[in-house]
Each structure stands twice: as C-alpha cells, then as structure tokens.
C-alpha cells in the first residue's frame, strides 16, 4: 500500500532481450530533458546565490564563475529571525494539530458510528473555505486580542489549515491497524485511553512522521495569513522573502541566497517524505 512507486514499474512493451530499444532511449532522454527544464529556475537561483551581485544580473548571463559564500553571510542576520519565526509557527501548529487531531482520528477510525463519515467529510469541507472567507473577522479579532504579529496568531491559523489533513491522514493510517490487536487488548482489560496510547499511537508512528512532515511543509510555505497577520516581530520566512519583491537587480545574489536557505529544508523534507506525499496530498484518496 505504501510501496515506493519507483519500485513498481509497469513494464510497458515487452522488449527484446539485450538492451533497451531506441524509442526507449529516446523517451528516457526526453524525460531527463524535461526534468532539467523544470528544475532550471531553481538551478539558476541556486547558481546566483554563489555569484557576485554584478555576475548575478550580467547580460549575457554568466555560466562559469568562482563561487562565493558572502551572500549567505549577508542574508543570515535577517534570515535567522525569520527562520526562528517559521520554525515556531510550523512546528507549533503541527504539534497543536496533532494534539487535537490524533484523538479524533483514532475515535473515527476505531469506533466508527454512522455519523463518522459525515464528520470526516465536514472536516475536509473546511478545506473548501478559502482563507479570504475568514480573514476579515479574524484580522479584527486578532487585533482586539493583541494576537497580530505574534507567534500564537500564526500557530492558531496554521493549526486550522493542517487539522483536517492530520485527521484524514491519521484516520487512514489507523484504519489499517488490524482490529484483532484491539480485541486482544480489550480481553486484557484495556480501556479506550489504553488503546489510544498503547496501540494506536505506537503503531501509527510512521504515519505520524509522514503527516508531520507534510504539515510542516504546508505551514512553512504559507503566505496569505503570514502577510496579513504578521509584520515584524513574528514575520516568518515568507514575509522575509516578500521584501525582495521589488528588488531591481541590486540584490539578486543575496535574494537567491535567502531563497535557497528558505526552500532547501522543504525540498529535503519533500524528497524524504516522497513515499507518503501522494497519500497526504490527496487526503488518502490515492495511495
């Protein structure tokens, strides 16, 4: 069910033994070419991070140069503050979403009633609520409560964003635990709390880590709430990056360095969590 897709090739066209066909080689070359084209903007950005500012916006573009690390050093002070805020908002909201979502996922998976499906669908439907449909009252409320430009403000909204994901993903993992295990525990006198902490949680640890990675990625990359609910003190990386939106070629190298530092953790997380990414992205509908 969670087989790494790359391990399950559908062998299209039974090929003659003794090496791949010409068309096969061409298709592979085409795939590599397309991958390169798709990756090029990121590659170009990463290269610029190691150029001098003059090289970064030279025309014609500079392809060979001696890499420097100054841009990273220059970007670091402002980056550090934004990084801290992003980490707090992403990790804090993920933890909160798990505290709220794990019990719900467990109850819906292990003790389903006829209303469970409705509850699950309703939770998913909160994802159909665009942020713009709630931002105005939330902004006014946060202003009155003093939550604007605070970590809590972001954590609250990111938890809302990630809670349906956590419930759906964890529901999907917890339904895969064989009922016999719970039954055996019940015979031994386990109550609901014991089943939850003693069986469901330990057995769904792989699911928890995959879901956590996804939730962190989503919170890390979020833009709308970050821009509207924070300004300086709690501004995460997305707000920091937006300060480069009007750069006119003076700070491309430094901007690229900041951007590389911003996207690298998520890229690594995403590559690591590839196996479970599809399941999470599709809310478990495609596995």
């Amino acid at each position, binding site marked *: 069910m969670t087989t790494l897709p790359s391990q399950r090739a559908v062998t299209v066209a039974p090929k003659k033994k003794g090496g791949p066909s010409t068309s096969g080689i061409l298709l592979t070359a085409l795939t590599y070419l397309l991958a390169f084209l798709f990756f090029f903007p990121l590659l170009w950005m990463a290269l610029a991070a190691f150029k001098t500012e003059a090289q970064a916006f*030279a*025309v014609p573009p500079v392809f060979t140069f001696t890499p420097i690390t100054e841009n990273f050093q220059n970007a670091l002070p402002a980056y550090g503050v934004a990084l801290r805020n992003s980490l707090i908002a992403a990790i804090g909201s993920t933890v909160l979403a798990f505290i709220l979502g794990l019990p*719900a996922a467990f109850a819906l998976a292990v003790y389903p009633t006829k209303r469970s499906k409705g509850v699950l669908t309703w939770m998913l439907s909160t994802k159909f*609520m665009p*942020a*713009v449909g709630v*931002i105005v009252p939330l902004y006014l409320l946060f202003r009155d409560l003093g939550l604007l430009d605070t970590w809590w403000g972001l954590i609250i909204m990111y938890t809302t964003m990630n809670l349906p994901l956590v419930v759906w993903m964890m529901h999907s993992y917890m339904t895969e635990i064989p009922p016999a295990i719970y039954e055996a525990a019940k015979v031994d006198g386990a109550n609901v709390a014991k089943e939850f902490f003693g069986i469901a949680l330990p057995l769904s640890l792989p699911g928890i880590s995959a879901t956590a990675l996804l939730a962190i990625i989503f919170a890390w990359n979020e833009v709308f709430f970050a821009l509207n609910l924070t300004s300086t003190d709690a501004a995460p990386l997305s707000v920091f990056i937006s300060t480069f939106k009007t750069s006119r070629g003076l700070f491309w190298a430094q901007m690229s360095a900041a951007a590389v530092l911003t996207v690298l953790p*998520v890229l690594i997380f995403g590559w690591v969590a590839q196996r479970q990414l599809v399941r999470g992205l599709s809310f*478990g509908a495609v*596995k």
Partner: protein
Amino acid sequence: MTAVPISATAPKPKGGFKITPSVMIWPAMLYLILTTQVPFFMTIYYSFFRYNLVEPDRRPFIGFSNYVGLLTDSDNLKVLLNSMILTAGTLILTLILGGGLALLLNRSFPGRGFVRSVLMSSFLIMPLVTAVVFKNMLLNPVFGFFSWLVKSLGGTPIDFLSAYPMATIIGMVTWEWTPFAMLILLTGLQSLPDDQIEAARLDGASPLQEFRYVVLPHWTQALEVVVLLETINVLQVFGEIYASTSGGPGVATTNLPYFIYQKAFAEYNIGVASAAGVITVVLTNILAIFLLRMISKNVSPGGH
C-alpha cells in the same frame, strides 16, 4: 465570537471523567468550528454593512448593496473572470503536462527515482520564492534569463509580466502545480495491474486504444482527485500574484483573493472585502460540491 452554540451539546462526562470516543472528536471539531465557521458567519454579517476601518464607528446597514456593487461593476466582474481563467488554464495545462510526465515516468529506466525527485521540486517551493525568482531573475525584460534567451534566438526581448500578464501567471502557477498532477497520476498508473495491459496487447490493441480503453478508465479516480484539489487550491492563489504583478497591470491579474486583500488591507473596506469573501466561498463550494458529486460516483472517501 464567544457564542459557540455547539458546545452546549457536548457529551457530559458520565460518572467522573472518562475518555469516550465521542469526547475525543470534539476538540478537533470545536477548533474547526471556532476558526472557520464562526468567522465565516461574521464575514457574512459584515458584508451587509458599509464598514470602513477608517471610520470604524459609522457602520450603516446597507443590505445587499455591497454584493450589487461587486456584481455590477465591470472591473469586479473581470476579477471573477480572472479567477476562472487562472484556475481553468492552470488545470488544463497541469493535466496535460503532469499526465505526460506521469506516462514518461511510468517506465523503468536508470535514475528514475532521482528524476522524479527533480520533477516534483517545483511543487515544494514557497509560492513567494517562485514569484520573486521568476519576476526578477527570469522574466526581467533587461536582465532576465528568458529575455536573453529570446534575444539570442533572434526574437525581441519581452516584458512578459506586462505584455502577457495572465499568461505569465498561469505559466508560473502551472510550473508549481504540474508535479502535483504528475505525482497523483503516476500513482494512479502504478496501481494498474500489469495483466490488464497484457490482455489488451494480446487482443491486438494499438497503443492509442490501450490508452483510451485501459489506462484512461483506470485513471479516472486519480484525475478527479487532481481536478478537485487543484481547483480549490488554484482558486486561492495569492502569493504568486502578490509578489509578481500586484494584480496588475490594471486588474489584469487580480483574482478574488488578491482583490479581497486589496479591499481589506489597502482600502480598509471591510464591507466590500467581506462580500467578496462570501462570493469566493460560495463559488468554491459550488465548484467543490459539483466536483465531489462527480467524484463520489466512484470514490469512497477514507483510507480503505
């Protein structure tokens, strides 16, 4: 904000506090009600007032005037149309590109896992980084890489963002969302049993027939998931527009989220922003229900 009617029906702990399954569901539900349903009802409430934060004390009830104003002004209708064009355009392009890439990746060749990682990267990038890098380093009419490319191929350099603003935004959003379509469609392909293809081959099906009658029907579920989730997400695109065109030139690339952002946070026009927010939610839900109905015919939600 304080009234949460649902909490009144929360199950009472019987005989001291005991964890029951339904008690475990309530915290999550209450949280979502408090942070999505309650604010949405307040958005509806605000939408009936002429309410500007510049004059917070003058807040006359004006009924549906905000809605009428929104739906009769041609600029605003353009915003609605922009949202649709952006969503539809991105959806079509990502389905074609993502589907093609999924078919290419559904073969065994050396380095396939690596190529897939490379191809999915653009989906993981923060939208603001995408916009800032494309705008400055790739699309800049003088210093940008693409402009240089166009020039060295013998064309005249183009200021993409002002000459073809919507097409450029669609291009950027497509770059971001193609991996999503690719990953889901690839997974869909890989669950296709080998023997079905073999059977089709034995029956002498041409590659095209094989695609049309074996692959495509099997792909339906994955395709529907892509259509539903991408539609909902692309309707909400904000960061790319904020950091590249700021909705311009004019209102050429203003979609609903950006419009609401402008109304609420630049003009402090809470009434109009709220009405536009309600319209966006209604539109999203109509599309979602329509798409879900399409999907629910052959997908049961949940993890089985």
